[in-house]
């Protein structure tokens, strides 16, 4: 992955608007958070291969990272995104990593279901 280029990401978000697409959305602080720091609290949320359709989406720049929101009949958003990749199949992968390269949040959009 490489550092987000908001123009390119916005282009792909627009490309997938008004189509049925598959979403992967996750956030986590790791299954060992509490094991390594007894004051920590493990949190995470995960959805893979939810089929959705959004009428529009937007990437918003903040100081250190990006937020992406997709307007469906409700809302989908992710915060803290830092890096992106377009796969060979044209999937848009967005993720936020800490300085050690550990994934903290991910939002991915694909026309075909993600591998299981």
């Amino acid at each position, binding site marked *: 992955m490489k550092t987000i280029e908001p123009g390119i990401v916005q282009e792909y978000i627009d490309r997938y608007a008004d189509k049925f697409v598959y979403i992967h959305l*996750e956030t986590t602080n790791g*299954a060992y958070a509490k094991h*390594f720091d*007894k004051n920590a609290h493990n949190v995470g949320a995960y959805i893979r291969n939810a089929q959705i359709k959004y009428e529009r989406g937007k990437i918003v720049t903040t100081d250190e990272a990006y937020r992406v929101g997709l307007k469906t009949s409700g809302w989908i958003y992710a915060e803290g995104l830092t*890096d992106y990749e377009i796969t060979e199949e044209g999937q848009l992968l967005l993720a936020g990593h800490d300085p050690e*390269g*550990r*994934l*903290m949040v991910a939002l*991915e959009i694909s026309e075909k279901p993600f591998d299981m």
Partner: protein
Amino acid sequence: MDFKDHKHVVIIYPHPDDESFGASGTTVRFREAGVPVTYLCGTLGEMGRNMGSPFFATRESLPEIRKQELLDACAVLDMNVEMLGYRDKTIEFESRKLVAERLKDYIEDLGATLVITFYPPFAVHPDHNAMGAAAFEAVKMIDSDIRPELWATAITNDRQETLGEPDVIIDTEEVFEKKLEAIKAHRSQAEGMLSKMRESSDFVGEYDSALQRLQYESFYRIDVDRVHY
């Protein structure tokens, strides 16, 4: 205990790298005694968080990478591996009974005389606890006169206070190079885990002793008719 006394050892853990951190020295000792060892690996660790710095993986490419690492580590340890195809961080939501029935078939088909797994609920990660519980259940389904021995790995920080001294402690010093080689075959995991140990407040100043502890592989002997899990 004489390693040669066993016919086949089956290790049941959920993640690629659990076998190398937890039981690779033991595996090498069994292999040196000519005993076959099979690793039933529950998932491909698809939800691993280390993508590297610089990046070597994405959420989508990680499973293939970890699969190859698993094959490399098992080659180092000269052990068989079966990938069970569950999904990282979801095993506790599967039917324990169905998972247990599958594990029982493997245990019986392989003629296992020893099963090694995690000790629920003393194994920290929900997959560890769920896989261990299914493995306990599988052994329990087998008639008591032909049941394999069952050893379990506990990794909670307070395991000694809760469970007492482990029943089996294998010193892997003689084969430690191989153990480290197996751990390092899991390139996506090893550095992350070691650096996490280095910076954790519970481990401050204890990194070297943590590494030393890797030298000892400890197990509790489980009587499935009496254990609560």
